[in-house]
């Protein structure tokens, strides 16, 4: 686990951030619209990413994690998905208001992203070298040969065996793990400040998952880069995160440094997630899932989004939306009736 206190970011004590955030999302609302109806899939999300930290964004599928990431990159499939409201501040600029050209210059150069399925995410009719060279030359004024050399270095850096000849490979000639390494090399070749990794290991074999994750963390540390890692896998979170933001139904319900979150989760949803983890213990017991289903985003309850599944819901929870607030201990979560966690 990377420590943050020595590098800036959010100190483990958890009161005030030491340095200014690198990227700051404020009140992001992203909506899906069709002819029949439209609804928000990200509902007023605010989140800061600090320099050099690994921030994990956790939540069930469909809770809006990927949409949040794509909102930052401005790569939403529009139509039908578009940002309705909010700001995404990066280096004094609001990404959402940048010209297309300016935004393109930020992608890969300052903020990079890697995706879930490395097979479909690579162009099948171009060699991986050609594409990396193209990415380099979209941002840097270098010759083709120089770009090719940089691309080879990038592939070598992410641990791809025989990197120079791999430049001439097509994606179908590589294994899943190698493809994901190519994706990482492409995302990191221009040394970005932030890497957004959207479930980068979900489509891979378990053994390869660990290698890729390891590679990502190594790169993050060596480059002093911030990483927003999107995952639904709490084991991954425990292994790599500095800080965790838990997302439920399009909003953040709790955020905390990773050890605090695992030791003492405050929001009932986070508690439910942790309780649902299988444990290795002497006595086998049934898994403990969170009862009920995620509410439909088309018909959100008027109060707390988690109230219908919450064992401690009060009357107030059904009628009023709790804010994401900091409690006297310095913990940040969104709940009217927090209960102590009994694992």
């Amino acid at each position, binding site marked *: 686990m990377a420590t943050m206190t020595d590098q800036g970011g959010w100190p483990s004590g958890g009161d005030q951030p030491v340095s200014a955030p690198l990227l700051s999302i404020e009140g992001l609302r992203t909506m899906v619209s069709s002819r029949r109806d439209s609804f928000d899939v990200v509902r007023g999300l605010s989140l800061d990413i600090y320099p050099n930290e690994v921030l994990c964004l956790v939540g069930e599928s469909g809770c809006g994690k990927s949409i949040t990431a794509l909102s930052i990159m401005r790569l939403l499939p529009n139509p039908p998905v578009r940002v309705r409201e909010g700001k995404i501040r990066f280096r004094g600029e609001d990404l959402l208001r940048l010209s297309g050209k300016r935004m*393109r210059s930020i992608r*890969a*150069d300052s903020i990079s992203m890697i*995706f879930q399925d490395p097979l*479909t995410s690579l162009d099948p009719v171009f060699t991986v070298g050609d594409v990396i060279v193209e990415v380099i030359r979209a941002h840097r004024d270098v010759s083709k040969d120089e770009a090719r050399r940089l691309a080879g270095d990038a592939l070598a850096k992410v641990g791809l065996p025989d990197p120079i000849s791999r430049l001439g490979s097509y994606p179908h000639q590589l294994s899943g793990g190698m493809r994901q390494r190519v994706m990482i090399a*492409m995302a990191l070749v221009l040394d970005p400040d932030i890497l957004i990794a959207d479930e980068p290991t979900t489509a891979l074999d378990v053994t390869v998952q660990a290698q890729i994750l390891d590679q990502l963390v190594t790169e993050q540390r060596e480059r002093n880069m911030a990483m927003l890692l999107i995952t639904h896998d709490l084991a991954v979170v425990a292994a790599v995160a500095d800080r965790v933001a838990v997302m439920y139904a399009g909003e953040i319900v709790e955020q905390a440094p990773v050890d605090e979150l695992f030791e003492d989760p405050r929001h009932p949803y986070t508690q439910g997630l942790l309780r649902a983890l299988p444990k290795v213990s002497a006595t086998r017991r049934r898994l403990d899932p969170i009862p009920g289903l995620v509410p439909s985003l088309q018909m959100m309850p008027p109060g707390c989004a988690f109230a219908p599944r919450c064992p401690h819901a009060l009357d107030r929870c059904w009628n009023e939306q709790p804010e994401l607030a900091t409690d006297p201990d310095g913990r940040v979560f969104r709940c009217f009736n927090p209960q102590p966690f009994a694992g």
Partner: protein
Amino acid sequence: MKRVLARTVYMVIVLVLSSIAVFYAIRLSGGDAVAARVPASASAEEREAVREQLGLNDPFHEQYFDYMGRLFTGDLGNSLTNNAEIGKLITEHGKNSLILGVAAFVLVFGVGIPLGMLASLRRNSWWDGGIMTFSVAGMAVPNFWLALLAVWLFASVLGWLPSAGCCGPKQLVLPAVVLAMEGMALTVRMTRSAMLENLNQDFVRTLRSGGLSESKVIGRHVFRNALVPIVSLAGLRIGQIVGYALVVETIFGWPGLGQVLVNAVLRRDYPVAQFFSLVLITVVLLSNWLADVGYTVVNPRLRRG
């Protein structure tokens, strides 16, 4: 490489089989091959003598091997009707057909692909609607009917273009457009759907996340992916051009291979009909073979393994 070799063997087999088919079909279609060669007043004995001299009374398979044997020694023979040398006929008319065919080919892909791209990039717009309507019409209207309409409108009513003739650019326009129309319409549709399909692929998002411009993402990457199905059917398009050329050349009086072949078949001029058919079959097979090779080039997934 293995694939290319297999296609080559396949091509030769088809060529042999179709030479047999052509040979038999024209003899089974009835009619009298010597009618055009002897005066109408000729007696039955005289006709029989000519038939014997031409070897038309031998069994079919003997005639076939005899003919193929002469072909391989380079003896293409002469026309039964006017005794013209077939070798000369081929070069004269082949040139005209080549001009018409290449013009149609350029229209099919040079116009079809850009129109399809435009329709896909302006999806559900007025452009898209217009182009797709044109494409449906192009597929639905049979080319002989389109030829007549075109002659009526552009030659008779407007007087812009000649209704028939050879071989200037003005005379070329109408037959080339009519010949290309169906292939062009199909290419438009195929380009549009292939572009739209690839625009929705994950790799497009990756390329955009790498900061590439839209012109690079679409003009280079999406287009190159869309080219795969288009090239795979290019052979079919060429075959279509060759086949339709028979009709179009006849209607527009364009003195190409098709026109000669149609006349030869009508007059039962066996040597001309046989050889011209074989030439057209070879052209179609070669173009299919080329399209296959091209498909391997544009689709790297086929190159190894």
